[in-house]
């Protein structure tokens, strides 16, 4: 501290401002114009509120999507097998290879089917009547499948039963219809042992499937399913074109890696595996998609809020020219003036940050409740938001505070109060 010697030895200490006095002056400065302060705060509230809402909702939504994904889709693997180059060459995946896959740890159910090529579906009809008013022939896809198809495709047999190993071994002419296929053909019950004609040959309907819950196997509902041996005999469908697998939770990526080797040891690269994407990647991907645009919006609001604070603080400084002059006359140093205005704008920013963060958190909770989500809130975010608001206020106040500090008390004092 600087001491000045005066005559008689009385020292005059350099001007200083007690911290408590400073706080009082700052609070009084903010409190004298409540309406203006409220409007000034609004920009920061919007900016911080948008940021908190965006980050909170995207974290919440990301968690929800990943959660739903984990429970169902992450347990489904499909293997597509390309057709043979010539009918005589050995199959890429022989039917017997399915057993290798079923033995793997983590596999719940495995089924394979060969499917009629698109555009070459055989005609399927429920009877031999020739009715000129109705189209009775339906071109339906026909699947030659193994017995575990309902389990692997996540469907149930709604009426009757599915064929078993005996039907396959005996190459029986039995058929299980998909839900839509049964409706098209007018087959609603099986206790009267209805028959359908596939490519002209009669097949006994032994069951009708219910809804298919596996998203990538919805084709099944419009198909007719027969034992793969019968399909090979009658329709020359040949070896399997698709293998579908359900796994226990978390095993899908592992099985997806092992399936080609189990099915086609000689040439694993010949088959194409469709496995779910890594849940962790999916989560971040979703979060980034949702939040990117809104984050920019929030930052823009924050900049607008900062400009608002800067503008209003500057106007306040101009309005309070006389007060600044008075304080300088009363012994305030330039730094006292600068600190006071800087703290006022910082306090306004902090207030905006607190209100904005609160509003944002409420918004996240409300959005979560309406969507039946579990709100996910980062505690660090709730703490950082008011600080961000204070920083915005501090930066916005720099220029006005400097302007105030540079003011000459001489000019300020003679004007009207």
């Amino acid at each position, binding site marked *: 501290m*600087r001491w*000045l*010697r*005066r*005559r*008689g030895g009385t020292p*005059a*200490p*350099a*001007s*200083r*401002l*007690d911290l*408590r*006095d400073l706080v009082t*002056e700052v609070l*009084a400065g903010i*409190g*004298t114009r409540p309406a203006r302060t409220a409007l000034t705060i609004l920009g920061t509230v919007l900016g911080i509120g948008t940021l908190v809402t965006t980050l909170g909702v995207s974290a919440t939504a990301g968690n929800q999507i990943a959660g739903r994904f984990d429970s169902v889709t992450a347990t489904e693997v499909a293997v597509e097998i390309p057709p043979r180059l010539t009918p005589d060459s050995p199959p890429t995946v022989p039917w017997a290879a399915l057993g290798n896959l079923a033995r793997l740890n983590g596999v719940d159910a495995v089924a394979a089917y060969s499917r009629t090529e698109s555009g070459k579906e055989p005609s399927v009809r429920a009877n031999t009547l020739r009715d000129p008013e109705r189209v009775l022939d339906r071109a339906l896809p026909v699947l030659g499948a193994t017995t575990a198809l309902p389990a692997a495709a996540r469907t149930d047999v709604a009426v009757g039963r599915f064929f078993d190993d005996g039907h396959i071994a005996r190459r029986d002419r039995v058929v299980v219809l998909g839900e839509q296929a049964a409706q098209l053909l007018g087959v609603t019950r099986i206790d009267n042992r209805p028959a359908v004609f596939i490519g002209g040959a009669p097949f006994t309907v032994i069951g009708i499937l219910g809804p298919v819950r596996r998203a990538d196997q919805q084709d099944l509902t419009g198909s007719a399913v027969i034992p793969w041996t019968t399909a090979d005999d009658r329709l020359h469908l040949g070896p399997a074109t698709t293998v579908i697998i359900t796994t226990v939770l978390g095993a899908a990526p592992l099985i997806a890696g092992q399936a080609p080797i189990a099915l086609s040891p000689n040439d694993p690269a010949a088959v194409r595996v469709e496995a779910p994407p890594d849940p962790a990647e999916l989560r971040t991907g979703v979060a980034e998609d949702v939040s990117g645009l809104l984050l920019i919006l929030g930052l823009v609001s924050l900049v607008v809020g900062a400009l608002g604070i800067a503008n209003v603080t500057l106007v306040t400084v101009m309005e309070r020219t*006389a*007060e600044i*002059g*008075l*304080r*300088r*006359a*009363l*012994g*305030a*140093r*330039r730094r*006292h003036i600068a600190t006071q205005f800087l703290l006022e704008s910082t306090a306004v920013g902090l207030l905006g940050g607190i209100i904005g963060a609160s509003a944002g958190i409420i918004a996240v909770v409300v959005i979560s409740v309406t969507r039946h989500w579990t709100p996910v809130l980062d505690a660090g975010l709730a703490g950082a938001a008011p600080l961000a608001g204070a920083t915005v206020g501090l930066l916005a106040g720099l220029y006005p505070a400097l302007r105030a500090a540079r003011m*000459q*008390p*001489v000019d300020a*004092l*003679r*004007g*009207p*109060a």
Partner: protein
Amino acid sequence: MSDVIALSGVGRTFATDPPVPALVEVDLRITRGDYVSIIGPSGSGKSTLLNILGLLDLPDTGRYELEGVETTGLDDTARTALRGSRIGFVFQSFHLLAHRDVTDNVMLGELYTGAPRSGRGERAAAALDRVGMGHRRDFRPGRLSGGERQRVAIARALIGDPALLLCDEPTGNLDSVNTAAVLDLFEELRAGGTTLVVITHDEAVSARADRRVRITDGRLSELDSATVELPVLGATGGRA
């Protein structure tokens, strides 16, 4: 009696084109307990002299000693400290903070002087009692008359116990009744030992001082207050 103010050879020229000499070779001594009025028309250099006396501006030439301290060589921080602790300002337009009550406004007078916070309220109350405003402590300035506001401003100037009360057109915004009240207060303060410098263009206000100094074109000349050459205007009162 020791000198409160000692100006010697003070000059101030504004660097306009052409340069304007606002003060020329000013010598002025004011001793403790003096009641001095500085009178002059606008443009005579009154404001410049006020700014220099109030340590708000620096002279180009000459020396200015405040209570024996040579101030022209001091830096801004030191002059600010001296200004805050040793000079009490009274302005034409009062400069009270409209949103703070009377006590807060008076306490503002020692906010920056380093005076202890404890006892500040009592000191403000004492200063308000000195100017006869003890009964208006909790009022906002907006509810006071002009004369009352100026008395609050004087209390604010008095709270730091300054060496000098520097008044710039203190009655410029007041009607005759309030002017008389403020001038009466100045006389009471002078009787209590306060050093007063009143800068005005009003001969009637100036006439109340013990000692009168005229400023014309930046030059000072002493007037003998006993031989007032201008008639004292009636309504604002003659010599008390």
